[in-house]
Each structure stands twice: as structure tokens, then as C-alpha cells.
């Protein structure tokens, strides 16, 4: 492969340079019906799961067909999306904030042909390329992060567990039988690149072993003071070690104080945490971000640990299914998962979801922990 220059001259990086131009302007990309009716929409309706119509003051309508997507996406796949958009949508398409793909048409007659086209498209392995759904009171796409596909700190994979869980709850991606939105998110480590901390159900990668210390290289590869400062629990101290008769500057970790956050590893590659048996998944539940009825809520830890069972994470997906079913059976219309848990009481949540309540689920992190304990005589037997 021969290097082909774009025109960029490394000798004169500033020559011709264009910077700070920002993104392309949104209105270049609006479909005509959007451009025309922007800010003048009157209402919307679901024709079926995955299919929406919005009606404008002008009487114009826009029909949206929402498709699930693995957001890890090849250009081949994007080109196929373009092909569909050209064929049905005048060359326009959009993505949602949860990585679904939206094809919009401006006339009802165009909806069925689009749906038929989408239904026919499958990957070689047999999975749908463009399953329609993800709207209303159902389970939408899982927002997620990099995992083993690209990041250096994950405690689990992202795309794999997402695929496994979405397969498990697929019927609810395509239906409206839930009491309200169910929003599932995944973050592969505590950095939580996403709104995992406020999701109906959150899948979180978590380490459970303190960092290993690569003493021989530590001082060479890391800024020791930065590694020490990175630790939120002050578990890291400077230390002198002797390796092969050589005295080296390094660090010591007080394992008892470590909460496995990996912040030290972010600052210092000589402190890796990853471990086959140590790493796995924490399940959280009951968060939300909308301000509808109740204020936004943080998700709560409901299962302290599930091992990484690649490639299909069966216990993780079964647990999530179990929670979703208990919720679907018991919650009231419009009630989000966290609202349901609070109404029935968390003691009932564990009972109805058939989950164990273990000591790990009791908050013991800093002062605010105290406010999560039960300070009333009100409880259910």
C-alpha cells in the first residue's frame, strides 16, 4: 500500500490549514418536510411499534421508521443504509440518541414498502440488519461503550453483552407492552461513558482485584505522584522495591482500601487490573433521566457481580430478562422501573425479581451512604 497524500504537507503544517470550522450545519441535512415544518409540529402518533407519524400545523406529515442497530457499524453497513435512504427517503436518514436509525418518509403510502424492504435485509449469520422497533413503552436499543473492541480499561466487553441482551429482549424491542420506557445501558468500566448511572437497567463492567504492580517498569512508564494522586481512597503510597538486586522507586497499594476503580491504571500503565476471574458485570436498576412525573434518579446496584461469560453472557441476559418481566407484570401504566421499585419498596423488588439481597448492595461509600439506610419503622414483611 503506497502512501497517498491528501495534500497535507508535514513540512509546513500550517500551509493552507483549515481549522475550527466546526460541524456541518444541521439544516444542510434536513429532509424537505423537516426543513419546512420545523418548529411547527402539532402532535405525533405511533402507527405500530417502530413507526411514528408527526403531523405539522401545515397538515404535512412525516413518517418515521426506527430500526435497531449495532452502533459498531462498518462502512458496508452505512452504505446499505444510504441505499435504503436513497430508495425510500430522498437520500435522508438520521440516528437517534440511542443509536437507532431513523428512515423518514413524507407520505403514508411510502411506509409499507420501506418496512417490507427493511424486513428482508439480514446478515449472513441470520440476524436482522434493520429490525423495526424501539419506540414507546418498549425496550429500546442499549447505549453502550467500547469494551474489548477498543478501550484499555474495560472489565467486560460492550458489543457482545449488548447483542446477547438484545437477543433476549428482542420481542420487547418490537412491542409496546411495557408499562413505560425501558432504557438499558452498558458501560464497560466505572468511567461510565454513557448515562448508565441513570438507566432503568444498567450493565456495568467492574474489576474486583487491586492493580498488579509492574515494579520493574513503573517508574519509567508512569509519573508516580500522578498515580498516587489518582486514587480516590488514598490506597496508593510511594514505595522502594528491590527487583533483581536493583533498588527501584515504585508504589505500594493497600489492597484493603482499593475499590477497583482503575483510576490508577488510567494514569499509569504499569498498574493493570484486568483479570479473567476478577472482572465481570454489576447490574444496576431503577434510574431515569426524564423529568416526567418524578425527578431523574440514579440507578441502584441490584446484582453485585456476574462473571464474564463470553460469548453470550447468559446469566447477565437472564437476570435482565427476569427484572424486565417482573416489572412488566407488576408495574402500573406510565410507571418507570425505579418508580415501581420505590412504590412497592425495594424489599419487594428483590422478592418479585427473585434476586438475592447481599451485603454488597448496602452503600458504604462516604458520608451519603448513611442516607440510603432505612430510617423509619415503615417496611414490608
Amino acid at each position, binding site marked *: 500500500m503506497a502512501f497517498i497524500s491528501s495534500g497535507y504537507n508535514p513540512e509546513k503544517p500550517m500551509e493552507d490549514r483549515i481549522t475550527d470550522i466546526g460541524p456541518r450545519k444541521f439544516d444542510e441535512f434536513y429532509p424537505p418536510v423537516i426543513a419546512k415544518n420545523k418548529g411547527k409540529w402539532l402532535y405525533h402518533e405511533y402507527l405500530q411499534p417502530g413507526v411514528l407519524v408527526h403531523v405539522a400545523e401545515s397538515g404535512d406529515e412525516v413518517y418515521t421508521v426506527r430500526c435497531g442497530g449495532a452502533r459498531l457499524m462498518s*462502512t458496508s453497513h452505512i452504505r446499505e443504509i444510504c441505499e435504503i435512504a436513497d430508495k425510500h427517503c430522498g437520500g435522508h436518514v438520521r440516528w437517534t440518541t440511542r443509536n437507532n436509525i431513523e428512515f423518514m418518509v413524507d407520505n403514508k403510502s411510502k411506509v409499507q414498502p420501506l418496512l417490507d424492504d427493511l424486513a428482508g435485509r439480514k446478515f449472513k449469520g441470520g440476524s436482522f440488519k434493520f429490525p423495526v422497533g424501539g419506540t414507546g413503552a418498549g425496550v429500546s436499543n442499549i447505549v453502550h461503550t467500547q469494551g474489548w473492541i477498543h478501550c484499555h480499561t474495560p472489565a467486560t466487553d460492550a458489543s457482545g453483552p449488548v447483542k446477547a441482551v438484545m437477543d433476549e429482549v428482542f420481542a420487547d424491542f418490537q412491542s409496546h407492552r411495557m408499562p413505560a420506557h425501558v432504557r438499558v445501558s452498558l458501560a464497560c468500566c466505572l468511567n461510565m461513558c454513557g448515562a448508565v448511572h441513570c438507566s432503568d437497567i444498567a450493565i456495568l463492567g467492574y474489576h474486583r482485584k487491586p492493580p498488579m504492580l509492574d515494579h520493574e517498569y513503573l517508574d519509567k512508564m508512569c509519573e508516580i505522584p500522578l498515580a498516587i494522586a489518582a486514587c480516590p481512597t488514598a490506597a496508593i503510597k510511594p514505595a522502594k522495591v528491590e527487583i533483581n538486586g536493583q533498588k527501584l522507586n515504585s508504589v505500594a497499594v493497600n489492597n484493603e482500601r482499593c475499590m477497583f476503580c482503575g483510576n490508577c491504571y488510567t494514569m499509569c500503565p504499569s498498574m493493570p487490573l484486568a483479570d479473567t476471574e476478577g472482572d465481570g458485570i454489576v447490574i444496576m436498576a431503577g434510574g431515569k433521566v426524564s423529568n416526567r412525573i418524578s425527578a431523574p434518579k440514579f440507578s441502584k446496584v441490584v446484582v453485585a457481580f456476574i462473571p464474564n461469560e463470553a460469548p453470550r453472557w447468559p446469566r447477565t441476559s437472564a437476570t435482565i430478562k427476569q427484572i424486565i418481566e417482573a416489572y412488566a407484570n407488576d408495574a402500573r401504566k406510565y410507571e418507570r422501573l425505579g418508580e415501581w421499585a420505590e412504590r412497592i419498596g425495594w424489599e419487594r423488588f428483590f422478592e418479585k425479581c427473585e434476586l438475592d439481597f447481599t451485603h454488597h448492595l448496602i452503600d458504604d461509600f462516604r458520608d451519603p451512604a448513611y442516607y440510603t439506610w432505612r430510617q423509619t419503622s415503615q417496611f414490608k414483611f
Partner: protein
Amino acid sequence: MAKHETPMLDQLESGPWPSFVSDLKQEAEKRAKNAAGVEFQIPQDAVEDLLGVLELSYKHGRTHWKHGGIVGVFGYGGGVIGRYCDQPQMFPGVAHFHTLRINQPGGKFYTTKYLRELCDLWDFRGSGITNMHGSTGDIIFLGTTTPQLEEIFYELTHKYNQDLGGSGSNLRTPADCIGQARCEYACYDTQALCYDLTNEYQDELHRPAFPYKFKFKFDGCPNCCVASIARSDLSFIGTWKDDIKIDQAAVQAYIGGEIAPNAGAHSGRDWGKFDIQKEVINLCPTGCMAMDGKTLKINNRECTRCMHCINVMPRALHIGDERGVSILAGAKAPILDGAQMGTLIVPFIEVEPPYTKIKEEVIEPIWDWWMEEGKNRERLGELMKRQGLQKLIEVLGVDPDPRMVQEPRSNPYIFWKEDEVPGGWDRDINEFRKYHQR
């Protein structure tokens, strides 16, 4: 034939949900065939090796990526995340595998023309693998080598009029909900405000001058479809001041069952006949609604604009006309001290281009304070916690407002300032002892 055996990943090809493995395989095959005759600027088998290294991670239960190191484009401090494989000999195609963050367009609307241009560029100079989109909102070009970074940037800016997004201790790529483009609930033009601020603050977006990352997100209404309240240092949530508009005839149509509640969002189950009392009035968190005979009444002064009633009856109820945003500050992920949600610091402000008030009276004073006082790797929310909400109110130069708190303090530990207390703090102990013997 595939370069690496991937028996574990292969199991992720079955099942109905779109398989990223199948997609990676189709891309690997496409590159292997290279029917289009692309002069790949990074290894042709990059995707094969990506599958290979991922399979190895599935086997080990551990990632095989190392720390990034500092790579990027000249003059920018962000937009690129460096990444190296920890088994480069086994997987040379992904030995260097950096990502680029491409600043997505507002509302994530695209033309196929533009998407194809991006695909062409990325097939040519990168792995052909993307994230549509990253959690912050960017288009993620996943995997290229160091020498290609400048080339890609040059082509993006020169050919496609397109810039990179943020990373590092910068303003991060702002993101918005679809808003007025297709949503009747939008209280302001999220795309316009997002675009304007993105452009106004290009310098902050590209050149790290902040203590840590900083995020803007724009939600058109309190439904928060871009989750701004949970994940942006400044969250802009549309709202209104006047009354919810009621179409009483449509209310009756809902009651009569002519229109499905919540636009049909609950169509998958028989929830029984719509009951406005049970489903709307009793669930209103402020209890400010009532039926007065056949007329729905809302005591708007008590309404907190939670959206519930409007969501349930979008054809009968509409947001008010005196619109603006509420601004909340300090949301962030849990590292280090626990997750934070945004705190309401500006209950209401108008959203009129060129948005001078928002820029000069909110964003910039906050940045000045944070840049002055923030420690290295301290998010705005953490600084707020450390110095107190009072301090931020002082910075904004506004009056303290009970709307900024959910409840007043329950501890009485008030740190009075010397100038608030008559007589000051210097007192003569011997004078005191005249009245109070030891």
C-alpha cells in the same frame, strides 16, 4: 477464508438483533476482496485482526488494548484517541488503531451523499469501522494509524467542510435532541443553539485549556431525550413560563377513546379504557389538574412542567408560548466521588440568537471560575461540591433562589463571613473576662 478462527464470536451471529460480528465479517471480506480497488492506507486486514484480537479477549476475558499515548493533529489537543494493541505481532493490522471523533451534525441528520463521502474517506484511510455514534455524540472513526491522522483531518476540512470533535481537557462535542426539527414538545431550537455554541467555542473545543473535560447538551424539553441532566456539565433543558395550552375538544376525544393516550405508546397491551383521572390527573406530581365538569383545568402556577399530561395527551395539551431554557450544572459520571446529576442554577433564561446572555452571563463566568479554581482533573460538578453552590451563585451574580435547591439545609452549620456579623471577629479576651471570670 477468515484470517483468524473466531469460534466464540461466531456464536454472536445468531439471534435476531443485528450482529456486529456479522457486520465486521462482511467488512473484513469486503476489504479482502477490495472490489472497489481502494488503495488502503492502513492494513487491508485490519478488520480481520480486529476480529482476531477481540476473539482473544473473549478467550481471556481481558482487553488487549494498551494506553493511548499522545497522538493527534497539529494545533489541536483533542479529537483523536490513541490506541495500541498489546499483541502487535499477532495482530499487526491493528497494532496502531487510533480513533478520530468527527463532530456530528445537529440532530444527527444526514444526507446519503455526505455519509458516502465519509465512508469513502474511511475505507481509504482507516479501518472502515465506525461507531454511529459515540456516547458523547460524535461520529467515531474506529481505527487508523498515526500517519493517517493529519491526512484525514486535511481531507475532512478541505474536502468535506468538516471538523473534529473534542477529547481531552476540552469542551467536548456538544449534542442535542431532535427537538423542533420533528418534535412538538421542543421549547427552543436545540440544533441552532448547539451549533452556535459549538462554533463560538471552537477554540475551547480543540485546545485544552480547561482543568478537565466539559460537556454541553441540549434537551428541547424536560423529557430529556439527550439525557443532558445526567451527563453534561451544562445541561440546557427547554421549558416555558406561561400556561399549557388546552384544546378541550381534544381532551374529550381522549376521554371518549377516539384518540389513543400517549400517542399509542402503550398499544402492546390492553390497559383498559383511558381514565383521565387515574392516568393524568392523579399522576400529576403537583396535583394541579382537575376536571371541572367537561373542562380540564390546570392551575399553571403550580405546574412544574414535568410533561406527563402533555405526553399522555399530545393532541390536547401543548407547551406554553413564553419559552426558554433552564440551565443545570455539574452532571458527571461516578469517578471519583460518585455520579452527579445537574443542579438547577438558572431556572429560566431566554434563548434568542445570538445567545449573548447565555454566553456572557452563564457559560463564560462559569468557565472563568472553573479555570481559576478547578484542580487538575476536577469536573465542574466536583468544584461545585468542593466550593459550594453558594460560590457558583456568586459567580453568576444572581440572587439565591429556593428553586436552586430541593430543600434547604438540614444541618445548621452555616459558615458566616466576618463582614456579615456585627462587631467582627476580633475581640478582646480581657474585656470579655471582665464579665466572665475564668
